[in-house]
């Protein structure tokens, strides 16, 4: 049994090479251990004091978000809100102010829950993830990170150090919405993210859609909308594709049937919000509150 507060990435990966599990905010790891889902690992290395992990760095290529950046920071960070609003939409919905204060984006994606909120927006933004161990550093597209419920392609000795997002193209934007039964302390019943890039004539140049809580992992779906206007018909196509391609389960929160229907509604709303933002309309973060999606007061 050991506990170490790492001050640097090197400290952290050295401890992980000896078998320690990283703990950032602990809002999955510690809470899960208290639930009795898993026991607390014997050896822990706290990574929440590592400065390099808590940075958001912007350059001409894009933006590197440290794995230790909290949801509370993501949802208000000027660069994230302006360039990647779909990610800010998701961060703003996580738990409560206290959950967002301790919970990190790295913990969210590495925990690998199919209901994680930041996964779908990161997928439509085509994020790449940097993983570091004592052996070296590698990057992989986030689409390759999740291998099953609570399983990732990272080995136990690899620390996620940052998540990279390319500079968004002109006339493009993103959005994330989720169906929720209450406005806080909630897990997505289903959720959807969309990124949309428009041509000068307003037709769709590129789009990506990803779904939360309707498959063993967060998943991207395909729908061919290139060259079409972002109109009612496009919205109907998005809804149909999402409902068709989802493979939801029934649990105490919702039946598979209900999830299959509502994922279509959420996908269409995410697409609509992303397209409107791409046209320059200001839709404040999070879309759920601004457009009254999910629970209202």
């Amino acid at each position, binding site marked *: 049994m050991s506990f170490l507060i790492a001050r640097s990435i090197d400290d952290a990966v050295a401890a992980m090479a000896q078998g320690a599990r990283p703990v950032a905010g602990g809002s999955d790891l510690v809470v899960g251990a208290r639930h009795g889902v898993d026991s*607390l690992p014997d050896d822990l290395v706290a990574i929440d004091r590592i400065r390099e992990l808590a940075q958001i760095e912007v350059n001409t290529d894009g933006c590197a978000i440290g794995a230790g950046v909290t949801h509370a920071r993501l949802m208000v960070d000027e660069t994230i809100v302006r360039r990647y609003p779909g990610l800010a939409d998701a961060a703003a919905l996580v738990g*409560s102010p206290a959950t967002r*204060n301790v919970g990190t984006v790295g913990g969210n994606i590495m925990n690998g829950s199919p209901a994680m909120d930041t996964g779908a927006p990161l997928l439509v933004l085509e994020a790449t993830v940097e993983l570091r161990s004592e052996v070296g550093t590698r990057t992989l597209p986030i689409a390759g990170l999740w291998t099953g419920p609570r399983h990732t392609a990272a080995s136990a000795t690899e620390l996620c150090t940052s998540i990279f997002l390319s500079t968004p193209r002109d006339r493009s934007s993103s959005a994330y919405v989720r169906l929720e039964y209450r406005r*806080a302390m909630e897990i997505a019943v289903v959720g959807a993210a969309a990124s949309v890039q428009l041509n000068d004539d307003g037709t769709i140049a590129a789009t990506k859609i990803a779904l939360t809580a309707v498959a063993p992992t967060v998943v991207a779906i395909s729908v061919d909308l290139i060259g079409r206007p972002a109109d009612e018909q496009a919205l109907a196509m998005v809804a149909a594709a999402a409902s068709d391609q989802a493979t939801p389960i029934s649990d105490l929160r919702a039946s598979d049937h209900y999830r299959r229907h509502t994922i279509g509604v959420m996908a269409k709303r995410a697409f609509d919000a992303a397209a409107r933002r791409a046209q320059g309309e200001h839709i404040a973060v999070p879309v759920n509150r601004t457009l009254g999606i999910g629970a209202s007061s």
Partner: protein
Amino acid sequence: MSDSVVAVNLRVNGTEYPLAIAMSRNLLGVLRNEVGLTGTKEGCDDCECGACMVLLDGQPVNSCSYLAVQAQGRQVTTVEGLVVDDKLHDLQRNILEAGGVQCGFCTPGMLMSACALLERNPTPTREEIQLGISGNLCRCTGYARIIDAIERSI
């Protein structure tokens, strides 16, 4: 499972507490037992109700689900820390006067969330207040008077 004992310096309401505690202990239990401050309550012990809310470097944290050893080197503020020179904090006075306390079990946690909210947003709207205390459950008051009290403290 054996549980290693770790030396931790906890700084609570400005006072240092050098302690030796098992790694798996939660901050809530250490505050109530070793430190001896019982204002912070245990409701669910499951990160759901907010009765255990304390501030860590000024930000709200559910202390039932936070490892005490992770608080090393951070400033912990509990409800006891709101009282200065034997005078109640505005939020405390207002929640009493507005009738926002019935059984009182949620009150310490509510106060800590409200305190953090006003710190990051000194002029919240009613809706922002609702979201600010959205991690705190109250089984008695129906929330309206708690929200009134926070509004009066702006």
